[in-house]
């Protein structure tokens, strides 16, 4: 029973982490109409940055604080240089351009940090565990991940639903020309959304780094799973991304327990089942 409970906690923690990545993906699509395959590469860069910066400044939290501005700038520059030229183009070209970005970012990662696996130590403050029974305990750090993700999700909700910035962005996703004719430079806001999305993915990579290792190709793996989350939830829906992330978190964790040989397939089978029922995703507009 306790094992089940621990597995459940693990699912939720994984689901929250997935939500951070998937929400950026779904926001960039919902607001800007852009499919960003390079989103997973941002996740990977976040993990490598926190590994590197933690080594330099010897403090995990300072590492995160230093890494986030780097990712914001990187997202902004990529949006201005490349993505900005794609708004009027077919999805096909967006897929290809961001595929090209992945090749570049993956190779940059190899040039900067090599092909080795690294681990990031859990910060000392959070390096404990809570005893659940005499033999089983749950690590504090995993709880910390869940709490931080919840805070970020709440913060996102407030920004999008309650602020002027959020209002402009929502308006821009409905009618771009109208917002522009009201005297607002929507392109600047798109750049902000894109770089915020990049930072969100990187942040997920940063706080996830101590529980998983940091390795080449980690971005590709999370990207595909995030796609599944977004498709299940309905593309463009943040609420959908949340529900989808939780479903996939459960399917993945319990898949590993129940059918260990083909755990990775459980996720995709779940997706197929849900799509049979609702082709546009749970919260998607048909």
């Amino acid at each position, binding site marked *: 029973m306790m094992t089940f409970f621990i597995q459940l906690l693990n699912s939720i923690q994984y689901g929250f982490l997935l939500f951070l990545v998937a929400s950026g993906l779904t926001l960039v*699509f919902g607001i800007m109409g852009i*499919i960003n*395959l390079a989103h997973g590469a941002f996740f990977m860069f976040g993990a490598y940055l926190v590994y590197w910066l933690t080594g330099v400044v010897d403090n995990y939290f300072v590492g995160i604080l230093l890494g986030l501005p780097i990712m914001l700038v990187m997202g902004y520059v990529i949006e201005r240089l*490349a993505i900005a*030229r*794609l708004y009027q*183009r077919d*999805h*096909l*070209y967006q*897929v*290809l*351009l961001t*595929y*090209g*970005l*992945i*090749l*570049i*970012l*993956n*190779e*940059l990662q*190899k*040039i900067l940090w090599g092909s080795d696996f690294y681990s990031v130590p859990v910060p000392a403050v959070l390096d404990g565990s809570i005893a659940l029974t005499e033999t089983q305990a749950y690590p504090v750090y995993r709880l910390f991940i869940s709490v931080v993700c919840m805070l970020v999700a709440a913060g996102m909700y407030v920004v999008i639903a309650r602020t002027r910035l959020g209002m402009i962005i929502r308006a821009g996703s409905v009618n771009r020309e109208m917002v522009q004719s009201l005297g607002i430079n929507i392109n600047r806001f798109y750049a902000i959304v894109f770089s915020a999305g990049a930072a969100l993915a990187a942040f997920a990579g940063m706080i996830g780094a101590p529980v998983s290792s940091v390795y080449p190709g980690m971005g*590709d793996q999370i990207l*595909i799973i995030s*796609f*599944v989350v*977004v*498709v299940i939830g309905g*593309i463009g829906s943040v609420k959908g991304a949340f529900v989808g992330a939780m479903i996939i978190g459960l399917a993945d964790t319990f898949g590993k327990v129940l059918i260990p*040989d*083909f*755990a*990775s*397939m459980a996720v*995709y*089978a779940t*997706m*197929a089942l849900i*799509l*049979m029922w609702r*082709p*546009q*995703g749970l919260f998607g507009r048909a």
Partner: protein
Amino acid sequence: MNTRASRLIRYFLISNLLLLVAFPWVGEHFYVGLVMNMMIFGILAMSLDLLIGYTGLVSLGHAAYYGLAGYLLAIISPESEAVSIWLALPFCILGTALAALIIGWFSVRTSGIYFIMITLAFAQMLFYYFNENTDLGGSDGIFIFFKPSVTLGSITLLDLDNHIVFYYFILVCMLLVYFLLRMLLASPFGQVIQGIRANENRTRALGYPTFYYKLVSFVIAGSIGGLAGFLEGMHGGIVSPGHLGWHESGLILMIVILGGMGTLYGPIMGAFAMIFLQDWFQEITVHWMLLMGVFVIAVVLFLPRGIAGLIEDLAAKLDKSVTDSNRPATQKNGESGDG
């Protein structure tokens, strides 16, 4: 494009074909092998072009059929002797057709970005299946020790172990696929799927069950992708999960765009250009992916119509420079005049 410009293109393609026919007699062994690779990717890219360029379905999981056929060949090939091609080829093609039918059944009811993501997710599902299945070599892949034999009774019709014979075998397959697809596109079926690409609602309003048309197109594309995978399995002698991975799917998509979608001959040229570049970049630097990434982005931004677009523009310009200026302006003739 007018008919004279398309005739120029036809001459250009025929001369390229002649070069291809002559190549194994003059090229080095390594490069003959590389050209085989290019032709296999040409077949694969044409099959994806049927989906993207003619049916309007952007699949990001096309490598699934390519890799699956390789695995099917590995499964049916005994370790100690060659399997008969009369058994192996139908097995691989029908197997991939069945997979395409199942995946298509779920996928083609969606469109746009959903279709992109769903095809990607299904391909990954197959990827993980083979990646984790240790009976089939897991992530290392599995060898195909002998090329299938082409015999009739006790007579060997084709010795595919012979480098040159195998080269022509692939070349003939590529030409067969090309003409088959052209016939298909000229048929009533081809007109309907092109109608779907132009306007699916209107095509449905005309009374065509578009779901089934798209599904059939999807299955045909998957089967031809399977043929490419079958040839690659014979050529490379190994199939690994990487063949099904989404990097491979991205590469095929890139080849179609680089060549020029909706032209059939374009994707073949795209395959030649892309494999050549890949080989060249790998020779220059270990960080060849960086160059590839920059190249991909440059093509998207500056060459959206691909190589075929360049050729068409060039042919039109050549045609104009030799044409009497009194001649009526160029007449649109769609893609039908190419090749």
